[in-house]
């Protein structure tokens, strides 16, 4: 087992044989996932029926505002809600296994070894009392029966791979002795040390300055390609999505409101919320730009989710739908083009018309 791991770590071999087809054929398939938290104020529907798929070697972006359910979704895939007050339902098929019903013991074997996660704030995500290197070695030792010396060797190698200078001496540093960018590199090293097949990066670059952001994204992309991993990149930064991802899921109020290939989402978006996101994105490729257009209103309460379309209280186009359906009827996520799905009552041709006539000129 450890020999095999080393082989994948040492050479950029592509390990297609271990990839077993799931029912739908995708490597990771999330179906109608719901994560509800029971609180004193009521049930918080943090994630309410989300579905997506990711293949190995592909990068999926999940975009949305704070509180739209992005992080909760990713933590549900790792089974981190087990043992909390969360109620998780739906299906998560990972490499032929169903994870929602899996036991904590089974999930533990997958966590870190086959699926790993990079968290948002590397300073608070690393334990302040333990050496950076030993925290990476710990992740390796959980899943590999090797000596501490061997774990150290692998960890130092990993630190080197993520671009930390003098990895052998930096191994013995504590997290507070690292800079922000180096901490995130260490987190990536920790996540990749067992060559996981699925990497979930939860806003990996939000705490970093822009120059470091680009390096970290490149690093993740490169390593994922090398290990042929599937990546889920969670972010609220559309620029990051455009640069990195191949497919995008737009989340709003715990639901998927639009998803599709990255080009469709950026050049042919059909959902009012996606338009809003694009309008509020600063762009450098324009010589002159008017003020950014914010999306009016605030994200919905996840306890009292708006009736009808979850976005209707903030949507400018509700009056274009006859019969007040936006407020009374919850729209389905419907296919509008190959691989492109939209949750909106406005008919497809009319949506596209609105985008080209009213939205595109303002972007």
């Amino acid at each position, binding site marked *: 087992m450890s020999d095999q791991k080393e082989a994948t770590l040492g050479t950029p071999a592509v390990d297609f044989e271990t990839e077993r087809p799931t029912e739908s054929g995708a490597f990771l398939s999330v179906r109608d996932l719901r994560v509800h938290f029971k609180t004193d104020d009521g049930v918080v529907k943090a994630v309410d029926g989300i579905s997506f798929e990711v293949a190995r070697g592909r990068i999926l972006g999940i975009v949305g505002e704070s509180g739209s359910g992005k992080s909760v979704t990713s933590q549900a895939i790792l089974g*981190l809600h087990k*043992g909390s007050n969360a109620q998780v339902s739906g299906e998560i098929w990972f490499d032929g296994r169903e994870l929602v019903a899996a036991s904590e013991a089974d999930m533990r074997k997958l966590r*870190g070894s086959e699926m790993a996660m990079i968290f948002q704030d590397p300073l608070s995500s690393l334990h*302040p*009392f333990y050496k950076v290197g030993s925290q990476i070695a*710990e992740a390796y030792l959980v899943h590999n029966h090797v000596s501490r010396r061997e774990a150290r060797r692998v960890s130092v190698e990993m630190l080197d791979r993520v671009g930390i200078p003098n990895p052998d001496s930096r191994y013995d540093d*504590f997290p*507070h002795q690292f800079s922000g960018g180096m901490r995130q590199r260490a987190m990536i090293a920790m996540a990749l040390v067992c060559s996981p097949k699925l990497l979930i990066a939860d806003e990996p670059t939000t705490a970093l300055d822009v120059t470091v952001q680009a390096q970290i994204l490149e690093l993740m992309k490169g390593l994922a390609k090398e290990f042929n991993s599937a990546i889920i990149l969670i972010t609220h930064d559309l620029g990051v999505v455009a640069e990195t991802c191949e497919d995008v899921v737009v989340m709003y109020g715990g639901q998927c409101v639009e998803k599709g290939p990255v080009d469709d989402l950026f050049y042919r978006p059909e959902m009012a919320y996606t338009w809003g996101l694009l309008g509020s994105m600063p762009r450098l490729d324009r010589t002159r730009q008017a003020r950014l257009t914010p999306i009016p209103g605030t994200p919905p309460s996840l306890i009292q989710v708006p009736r009808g379309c979850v976005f209707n209280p903030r949507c400018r186009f509700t009056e274009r739908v006859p019969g007040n359906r936006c407020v009374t009827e919850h729209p389905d996520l419907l296919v509008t083009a190959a691989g492109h799905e939209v949750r909106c009552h406005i008919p497809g041709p009319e949506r596209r018309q609105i985008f080209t006539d009213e939205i595109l000129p303002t972007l």
Partner: protein
Amino acid sequence: MIRFIIRRLLGAVVVVWIVSIVTFAIFQLAPRLSGQSPIYYYIAKQPPPPGSVQFKELEHAFGFDRPLFNQYWHWLSQIFHPHTIRNGAGTTAEAASCHVPCFGYSFKLHTEVSTLIWQALPVSIGLAVGASILWLVGGLIVGTISGLRPGSIFDRVGMVGTLAAVSVPIFFTGPILLLLVVYNWKWLPNVSYASITADPLQWLKSMILPWIALAFAFAALYARLTRANIIETMGEDYIRTARAKGLSRRKVVIKHGLRSALTPIVTIFGIDLGTLIGTTVITETVFDLKGLGWLSINAIRQQDLPVIMGVTILAAVALVLANVIVDALYAVIDPRVRLS
């Protein structure tokens, strides 16, 4: 690391020095503000009439006729110089030699203060250390189990119980324990204190109840503190990271959770333990132990100033020392402390 400890030790010396000034000011100078000579509190008998030759001789012997600043140095230097102390002139006077460290002589108890302290200190230390082990073990276990499962039956019962325990004073739990364990159930004999070197078994028998009584309230406090810290720590991002690595629950809790959660408790524990040296008056009174608390309360009752001053300074030194040890321990536990 060594520089860190040396810095802390130097700081501790400064603190003890300041304490000595304050102690001196309170007990030597304060009586004068009410127009009294402190002589009375030192000789344990009616002093000669003020202004008389004998009175002036006494004042001179104790150094009270010197200027204030000089008086303080005189008092401080006497600690390190063996000398003879008299409580008067002539044949009726009592004379006593005082050995280093000389904190004075109690003419009430006819013993050197350092001897009195030396006799009482083992009792107090034995009481404090034994009780602290009990409350630490009890408090940490209850607090950890509660904190890992907040809202569970154990947690609810435990927290109500600890609230009750915190609310009940030692002068209530102490006599109740004595009544039940010794007199009603006769589980323990009614033994008097013996030093641990003289008779370890009797020492143990005499100390068990005081330990329990003293540990009771502290254990409850530590259980609540531990619980709060555990709950906070288990919500930290690095705990989520540890779980995401695939670590077992036991490893997540013990290696990643407890180590952070218990660090602040080290601080409080050290200070509590240091404070207890010389302040366990009630426990010592209830269980008839002749420790520092008993010594000081008796000295206060009899206006035996040299003893009060001696115990005060010792208690201060114990607390400062406990703080230094805590600081050193903290640096070992938390790497972030070492650099700053």
